[in-house]
C-alpha cells in the first residue's frame, strides 16, 4: 500500500487524547497532484488526520513526510511555509480586514517583521489577487470588511487565500458545509481545478458533493482506515455500510 512517491506520507501514526485512541493509521499517502476525499462518521478522526499533517497536533508515534522531508516535529508555521495550506471547518478569515487585505496577508512573501513594516504588494500580486477574487465572485467586494460576508463567501475567501498563498498541498475541511446548491457546485468546480497543480485533501460529509469531485475516497472509522478507492467501490463495501448504518446515517 505504501508508495514512496506520495507527496504526503503518514506512516504508523498514532494519536491519543487522554488514553483515547483518536487515530491509528499504518499508512496514508496522497499522490502528487491528486484530489483525495476523506469521509467517515463523526469522530472518525478526519480532522485529527489533517491536524497531524499540518502540525497542529503531535502524534504519539509515527512519521509524517511531506515532499520528501520529515516534518513530524516541525512547528505549524514551518510546515505552512513548506507549502501546506489549510482551510478550517468553520470558515476562518480575518473579520476586521477587508477581503483584499485578507488576500494580501495570505501572499507568500514578507512574513517577517521587517517586511511587515516596509513591504507593499507588487502590481503583479495585486493582479493575481483580483483575478482570484473574480474567480470566487468576490471581486466587487474587495474593499468590504470580511465580517460582512455571507457564510458561503467566507468559505470561498478562505479557499482563495489558500490559492494565493502559494501552498502546494491543500487540506480543506468541510468546504460545502452550509452552502446553497449553486455555491456547492462552484466549490466542487474550484477544487477540481485546483487538483493537478496542487495536491488537495478534502474532508466532506455531503455525498452529493463528494460524487461531484469524482476522486479517490478514503473512509475513516474510529481512527482507522476502513477502505480506499472510488466512491462507488467504497459505498459497496459492506464494512463501510455497517460503519455508517451503525450510527444511523446513510452514505
Amino acid at each position, binding site marked *: 500500500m505504501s508508495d514512496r512517491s506520495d507527496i504526503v506520507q503518514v506512516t504508523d501514526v498514532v494519536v491519543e487524547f487522554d488514553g483515547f485512541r483518536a487515530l491509528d493509521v499504518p499508512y496514508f499517502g496522497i499522490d502528487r497532484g491528486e484530489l483525495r476525499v476523506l469521509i467517515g462518521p463523526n469522530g472518525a478522526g478526519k480532522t485529527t488526520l489533517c491536524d497531524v499533517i*499540518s502540525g*497542529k497536533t503531535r502524534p504519539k508515534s509515527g512519521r509524517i513526510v511531506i515532499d520528501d522531508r520529515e516534518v513530524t516535529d516541525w512547528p*505549524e*508555521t514551518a510546515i*505552512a*511555509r513548506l507549502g501546506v*495550506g*489549510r482551510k*478550517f471547518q468553520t470558515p*476562518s*478569515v*480575518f*473579520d*476586521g*480586514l477587508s477581503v483584499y*487585505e485578507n488576500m*494580501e*496577508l*495570505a501572499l*507568500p512573501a*514578507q*512574513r*517577517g*517583521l521587517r*517586511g*511587515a*513594516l516596509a*513591504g*507593499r504588494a507588487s502590481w503583479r500580486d495585486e493582479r493575481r489577487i483580483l483575478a482570484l477574487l473574480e474567480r470566487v465572485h468576490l471581486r466587487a467586494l474587495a474593499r468590504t470588511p470580511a465580517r460582512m460576508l455571507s457564510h458561503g463567501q467566507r468559505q470561498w475567501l478562505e479557499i482563495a*487565500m489558500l490559492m494565493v*498563498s502559494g501552498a502546494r498541498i491543500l487540506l480543506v475541511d468541510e468546504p460545502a458545509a452550509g452552502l446553497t446548491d449553486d455555491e456547492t457546485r462552484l466549490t466542487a468546480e474550484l477544487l477540481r481545478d485546483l487538483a493537478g497543480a496542487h495536491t488537495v485533501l478534502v474532508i466532506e460529509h455531503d455525498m452529493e458533493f463528494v460524487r461531484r469531485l469524482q476522486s479517490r475516497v478514503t473512509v475513516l472509522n474510529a481512527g482507522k482506515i476502513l477502505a480506499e478507492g472510488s466512491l462507488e467501490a467504497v459505498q459497496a463495501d459492506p464494512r463501510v455500510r455497517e460503519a455508517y448504518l451503525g450510527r444511523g446515517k446513510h452514505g
Partner: protein
Amino acid sequence: MPRPRDLVLAEVLRQRSWAAGLRWFDYHAPALGALLLVFGVPGLFALGLLDQSDLARLGRYCCLAMVAIGLDLVWGYAGVLSLCQMMFFTLGGYACGMYLAMHGPLDGDGIPRALFVVSSDPEGMQLPWFWKPFADPWFAAAAVVLIPGLLALVFGWLAFRSRIRGVYFAIITQAATVALWLLFCRNDLQLCGTNGLTNFTRLLGFDLTATATKVGLYIVSAATLVLTAWAVLRLTATRFGRLLLAVRDNEARLRFLGYDPVAYKTAAFVIAAVIAGIAGALYTPQTGIITPANMTAIESILVVVWVAVGGRGTVTGAVVGALAINLLYAWLTTEVPRLWPFILGALFILVVLFAPGGLVGAWRAFVRRGERTA
C-alpha cells in the same frame, strides 16, 4: 468610508448642509484637537482663562493619554489585554526622577534628599553605585526608553512564545506589576521606598518652579502626545498594523499561513512599553514626585477603562477616553468626591452595553447616519 480630502470650509458653507458640516468636522477633528492641545491651551493660559494648576493637570493628562495609546496598540489592535502599562510608565518616571533627584538638593555625601531621609544609617551613607550614572541626562534618557523596552521584550517574548493568551496573559501582567510595586516599596532597594522620588528643582538647567518651565513642559507633553498618536496611526495603516488585527481576529489562521505571531505581538508590546516609559518621564517633572503608588494594579486597570470608553482600535479613542475621563474625574472629585467610583463604574458598564465601539465608535456611527440622511 470615503474620506473627503478636498472638503474645505468654503465648500461646506456653500452647501449649507448640516451633513456637510458634520463631515467637515469629523475629518478635521483630530487636527483641531491637536491644535487646541498644543497651542490653544497655552493661549488660554496666557489670556488668564486657565491657571497654573489647570495647565499642570492637562499636562499630566496628556502623559496618561500616551499610555492609553500604547495600550490601544496591544489591546485594541493586537487583542492582547495588558494590565501592566502603568508599570512601564512608572519605570520611565523613576529613570527621569533619579536624574532630577541627582540635580536637586543633596545631603550628606552628595546624596539626593529623598534617598537621604529614608536611610536607616544616614551618617556613613554612600551613594549607591546605580544612582551615579543617572546624573547624566543622556544616560537617564536612554534608561527611560531602554528599561521599559527591554523588560517588555523579555517578558512579552517569553509569554507569547509559550502561547499565553487572553485572560492568562492579563493575569500574569497584573502579577508582574504587583510584584514590582512590592519590590519598589522596600527601602533596601535604595529607591526611596513608598515615599518615592521627590525634591526636584532643576531639569536640564531650567528652574522647575518657573512659570516658563511649566508652560514649556506642558507644550512638550502635548506635542509628544500628538506626535505619538500620529505615529501610531501611521503604523496601524501599514502591513504591520493589518497583521496585528489579524492576530486579534484569528491567530491560528495566521500561523497556518506561515506567520509567527510571537514577533508581532512582542513588537507591539515593546512599542507600547516604550511609549509608556516616555510618558512617565514627562509626567514626573510636572507632578514633582513619582512613587510606587503609580504602579499599583488599579492604575493599569484604569488605562483599560479609558481605552474601552474612548473606543478600542482607533488610537483617537484612546486619547479621547483618557482625557475625557480624567477631566471628568478632576471635576467630579471636587464636586461629589464620594460618588466618583460609582460614576466611573456606571460609565464603563453603559459603554460596554450600549456603545461597544466607545465614544469614537458612537460618533462615527452618528456621522455615517448623517451622511445617509443627507
